[in-house]
């Protein structure tokens, strides 16, 4: 069974007046890993969704193994052997691994003979380079396991052209390397052809053979990865725009402890304990990064510190005083935050951009006197912040949900960083944003630190932590298992702790936060 070849010729896809894909022609060679590189909204996802039958293109041809094919539904794509591993998992959470695999096959018999299915699946798993326990329920799997299962699912279905959509957004570096390495080896053995959608150069340079770069729906460059430098690819990807680099961190001694937790325990949604009695201390003028694979208690920890989730045990202190997340305390101590999914966690989606920007300060001078709001002052503040933080919005009165992800993030950042900040709590601030937005938001976080704010930064992106943080704590299953200064951090050691292989090499630095 040989790897298939695929050509896309003159493909165009329009959504109303917007052209998401504009006359794109790409040749995907058999047995190769082909990267589709581009910023968010460049048209990568639209292109592959046309290939797997999710959308149907307005114009263009698809040539598969030398003959023209019409892919109108996901069934057509499946029949050809084209399979996609989605960025959002398409597993059914309440079912087991086994049920999900059998279900994915599509041509189920009316009555399912589980004993035979189990036997066949065990034999299949034994042949695979990586495994997932068959009897486990999906909702109990870690993100990395789900990603592996998604890939296994495509192999189980005998797909020969496998499309990976942002495959490493939820994996640790090591997990990503392992999964992509295995996929690349299979391609090079001519078993499958692979398309990877990504905006990370590291994945392109490490794993892809060919690359096509999309920008605003157009093909703007392509070639062999070996012949292109990351700088050339970056230029194709973002055009002539200037990238603002991260603000330089001023070297200074960290000041007094601003935010600390003492034996903090937090529950999860299911009544279990997500964070087990952790101690941390963030000092003035430093960024404390928390690294970890998603689902190890970071979300619950942040939600607790932001007052969205009750403290189950232990306590939180700010500037030495007990802190119970009341609005009075938040304003007194100047605590600000940029939670993940800001539209959900930090905005009122149907309220105007101006209204959302005033959520922190509408009850204080100069926006209010007594029970009355000063709309004039509110409007001029919003205009000033929109200009200063370059929020792209049709007007200050537009509902904030109409803004793109990056602009919602900027609007929230404008609100949170426009006043004096003593404590800043940040979670995955640039998840899914494009280059320019990432650099901008990073530089503003670093600027807050330079002005003396104590910053707690939770991120699933290790590169982000290494770039921004002064110290890094690794969280695993709700406990801090490793601490290191960011400056001389060893990513392979961090990765091992993130994956829970704590026993291998001895810890380099003793967790000093515990003593604080």
């Amino acid at each position: 069974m040989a790897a298939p070849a695929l050509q896309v010729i003159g493909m165009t896809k329009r959504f109303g007046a917007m052209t998401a894909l504009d006359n794109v022609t790409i040749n995907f060679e058999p047995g190769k890993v082909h990267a589709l590189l581009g910023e968010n909204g460049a048209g990568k996802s639209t292109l592959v969704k046309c290939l797997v039958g999710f959308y149907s293109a307005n114009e263009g041809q698809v040539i598969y193994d030398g003959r023209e094919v019409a892919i109108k539904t996901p069934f057509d794509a499946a029949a050809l052997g084209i399979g996609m591993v989605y960025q959002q998992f398409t597993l059914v959470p309440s079912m087991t691994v086994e049920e999900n695999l059998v279900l994915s096959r599509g041509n189920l018999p009316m009555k399912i003979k589980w004993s035979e299915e189990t036997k066949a699946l065990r034999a299949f798993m034994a042949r695979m380079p990586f495994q997932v326990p068959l009897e486990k329920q999906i909702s109990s799997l870690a993100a990395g396991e789900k990603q592996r299962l998604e890939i296994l699912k495509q192999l189980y279905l005998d797909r020969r052209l496998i499309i990976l959509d942002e495959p490493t957004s939820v994996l640790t570096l090591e997990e990503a390397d392992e999964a992509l390495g295995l996929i690349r080896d299979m391609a090079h053995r001519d078993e499958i052809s692979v398309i990877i959608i990504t905006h990370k150069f590291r994945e392109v340079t490490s794993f892809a053979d060919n690359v096509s770069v999309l920008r605003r729906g157009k093909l703007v460059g392509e070639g062999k990865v070996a012949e292109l430098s990351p700088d050339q690819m970056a230029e194709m990807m973002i055009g002539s725009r200037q990238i603002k680099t991260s603000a330089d961190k001023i070297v200074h001694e960290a000041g007094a402890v601003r935010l600390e937790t003492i034996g903090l325990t937090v529950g999860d949604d299911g009544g279990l304990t997500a964070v087990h009695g952790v101690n941390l201390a963030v000092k003035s003028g430093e960024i404390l990064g928390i690294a970890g694979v998603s689902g190890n208690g970071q979300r619950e920890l942040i939600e607790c510190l932001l007052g969205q989730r009750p403290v189950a045990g232990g306590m939180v202190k700010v500037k030495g005083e007990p802190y119970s997340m009341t609005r009075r305390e938040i304003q007194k101590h100047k605590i600000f935050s940029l939670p993940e999914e800001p539209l959900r966690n930090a905005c009122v989606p149907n309220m105007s951009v101006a209204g959302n920007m005033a959520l922190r300060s509408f009850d204080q001078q100069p926006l209010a006197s007594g029970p009355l709001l000063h709309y004039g002052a509110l409007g001029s503040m919003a205009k000033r912040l929109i200009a200063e933080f370059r929020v792209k919005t049709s007007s200050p009165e537009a509902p904030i949900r109409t803004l793109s992800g990056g602009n919602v993030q900027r609007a929230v950042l404008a609100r949170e960083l426009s006043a004096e900040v003593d404590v800043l709590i940040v979670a995955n601030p640039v998840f899914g944003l494009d280059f320019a937005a990432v650099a901008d938001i990073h530089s503003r976080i670093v600027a807050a630190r330079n002005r003396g704010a104590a910053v707690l930064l939770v991120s699933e992106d290790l590169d982000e932590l290494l770039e921004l943080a002064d110290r890094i704590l690794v969280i695993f299953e709700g406990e801090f298992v490793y601490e290191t200064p960011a400056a001389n951090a060893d990513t392979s050691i961090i990765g091992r702790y993130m994956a829970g292989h704590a026993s291998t090499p001895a810890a380099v630095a003793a967790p000093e936060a515990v003593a604080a």
Partner: protein
Amino acid sequence: MDNNDIGMWGILIAVIGGAIRVSTPFLFVSLGECLTEKSGRINLGLEGILVMGAMSGYGIAYLTGSPWLGVLVAGLSGCVLGSLHGFICGLPRVNDIATGIGLMLFGTGLAFFLGKPFVQPKAPSLPAIPFGFWSSSPQIKAALQVNVLFLLGIALAFAMHWAFRNTRWGLIVRTVGDSADAALAMGFSVRTVRTLATAAGGFLAGIGGSFLSLYYPGSWNESLSSGQGLMAVALVIFARWRPLYCFGASLLFGGAGALGPALQSVGITSGYYLFNAAPYVLTLGIMIATSSTKHSLAGAPGELGVIRA
């Protein structure tokens, strides 16, 4: 056993007998709602379907003389109303809660309108199997008059339990109910599956309604249903969307509903109306006891209660 002094035993037997009688409509309606909700949709209109089923079943049984034909037509009328709900909810930007409440009012109103001529006449009843034949006690004989529909309901609960895990349709319904994205990625039509599941759920609720008019209480009038259709929705939540638990919960609710009449039959009449409120108190009590501000409901289909704007 002394027939003149049956005391506590009498109450217990009466409650058991009552549980079997009263639970049957709960069982069918809750199994129907379980199926619908498993597919990711809520049908609050089951009360209307239940009343419509009671009316149409009674009417057909009276006109044709066959109670079983009545049951079938009751199911079909439920199926039609269920399909209507399914179709309307499948349209873009339709909220299934609001549609369900509309359907509830529509179903009861339509049943009252069409059912006027059937309030007086007497239709034939469904047969029952006398499982109490071995006993000389009239109480036990009465309690163990088990209707065939009850047995069918039990069989259905087991069949659904098995089918959700072991058949293609079972897996498809669970997939659609738990993750519409996953279902779409596998090429299932979420809308079709939900519409079919809502129609099938309506069929079962209609049968539940026919039990009310054709067996117990056994006549058609406008005060026939006392909210069984609505309570079945609560019952499904309490049963954690599992068919076998639906059966247990129906028995429990049926037993609670039989408490008032059972006490009355042994001469305890004070607080009769208070005891009649037992199922509702039980509903509230169970909802409070099993809910929590910290835990999300285990077993709830993931697509359920998603507010579509």
